[in-house]
């Protein structure tokens, strides 16, 4: 019974995790481009955005995204918005972190790679996607792994707006049955999820290790 409920919660946690990655990984790339843009307005906006996302608690961001529409615009929030709010908050928060990782990777590329590509006639897009990006991915994988592992654990913050993910469920059951066991089981689940994440990322790193 307890395991069943926790299992349901875990599925929600995994959904949050997957959807956050799905949106924040590409969104982070856009933010990184904005951050490195020659347009100083765009650069300024993305800089402030990243600064706020990294400088304030994710839990607070969750609350703002969820309750903001009501408090600010007096829009009645429906129950189905809860999950959407979780995904929005996580995606824009993690996009900021990923953007900085992308930027560090892109800026660490030697200028000679761009120059060699230019002399060989590659266009800007070709240079980025064929020459730069594959090398950047290899460079940033360890940092991305860190971030993804943090995300697994951060999904528990959805508790703040009562999203019924694994941590919320564990706490409910623990309170109802006055036992710590559900929290321990949830802990084991998070741990196993992260083992899986680490294993997948290790394989990716191996796949990129054919060159130096």
């Amino acid at each position, binding site marked *: 019974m307890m395991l069943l409920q926790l299992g349901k919660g875990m599925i929600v946690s995994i959904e949050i995790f997957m959807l956050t990655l799905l949106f924040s990984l590409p969104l982070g790339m856009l933010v990184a481009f904005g951050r490195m843009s020659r347009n100083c307005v765009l650069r300024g906006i993305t800089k402030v955005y990243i600064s706020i996302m990294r400088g304030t608690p994710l839990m607070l961001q969750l609350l703002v995204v969820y309750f903001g529409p009501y408090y600010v615009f007096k829009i009645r929030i429906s129950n189905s918005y809860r999950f959407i709010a979780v995904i929005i908050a996580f995606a824009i928060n993690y996009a900021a972190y990923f953007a900085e990782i992308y930027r560090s990777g892109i800026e660490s590329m*030697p200028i*000679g*790679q761009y*120059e*060699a590509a*230019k*002399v*060989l*006639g*590659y*266009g800007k897009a*070709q240079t980025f996607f*064929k*020459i730069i990006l*594959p*090398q950047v991915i*290899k460079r940033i994988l360890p940092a991305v792994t860190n971030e993804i592992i943090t995300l697994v654990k951060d999904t528990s913050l959805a508790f703040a707006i009562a999203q019924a993910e694994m941590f919320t469920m564990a706490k409910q059951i623990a309170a109802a049955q006055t036992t710590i066991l559900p929290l321990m089981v949830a802990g084991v689940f998070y741990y196993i999820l992260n083992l899986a994440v680490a294993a997948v990322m290790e394989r990716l790193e191996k796949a990129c290790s*054919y*060159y*130096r």
Partner: protein
Amino acid sequence: MKLLEMRHVKKEFEGLQVLKDISLSVEEGEVISIIGPSGSGKSTLLRCATMLEEMDSGELLYMGEYAARMQGDKCVYAPKGERKRLHRYFGLVFQNFNLFPHYSVMKNITDSLVSVDKIPKKEARERAVKLLEQLGLSEKQDAYPYQLSGGQQQRVSIARALARQPKILFFDEPTSALDPELTVEVLKVIKALAKEHMTMIIVTHEMQFAREVSDRIIFMEEGIIKEQGTPKELFETENERVREFIGHLAGK
């Protein structure tokens, strides 16, 4: 036929005049070495010729076609498409190779042929195989750059430049990152190219090599061409400064 013409090229970096009115024209089949102390503007000249750097003023022509021209007192570059076409006329070999580390030797050579110049894969491979054979790298076609010595990497980068069949090949201190032994193997390749009358402009500190391989040597200092002529003329010049420089580097 003038392959390359540079007229009154000027370039400054943050107030520092690196090139002060340099003119240079290159005939088909000519091998030109550019020598001079560091900071003399040699590399900048090469980077302006290969459009990695934009001139502040001056004109740049390949095969009589303008890559950049003066309009009034402004230097105007040809539109992007035009410049891209002119890119096919030349190749550049860098001091530190700049091979693509994630591509095999074969792909380093063929990728731009296939994805930029739209040459069929099979033909690109054939070209690469032939070049690698010429440069003694046949066994290395599936290796990655990190698995090669510096000399081998530089030879691959020469092959990569040659595969596009440029009219003119620039070398920016091609042996400065190599130890003496590896330097020899790269210089041998360049000498062989000179024998086949490949048009080349070589920025180098290797005096003996410049003397052997060049039709013309240019001595640059402080952003101007101080002296130029055949190797014989330059090595026997009356110009005190050039003598001193050459003597110093030739170890005399």
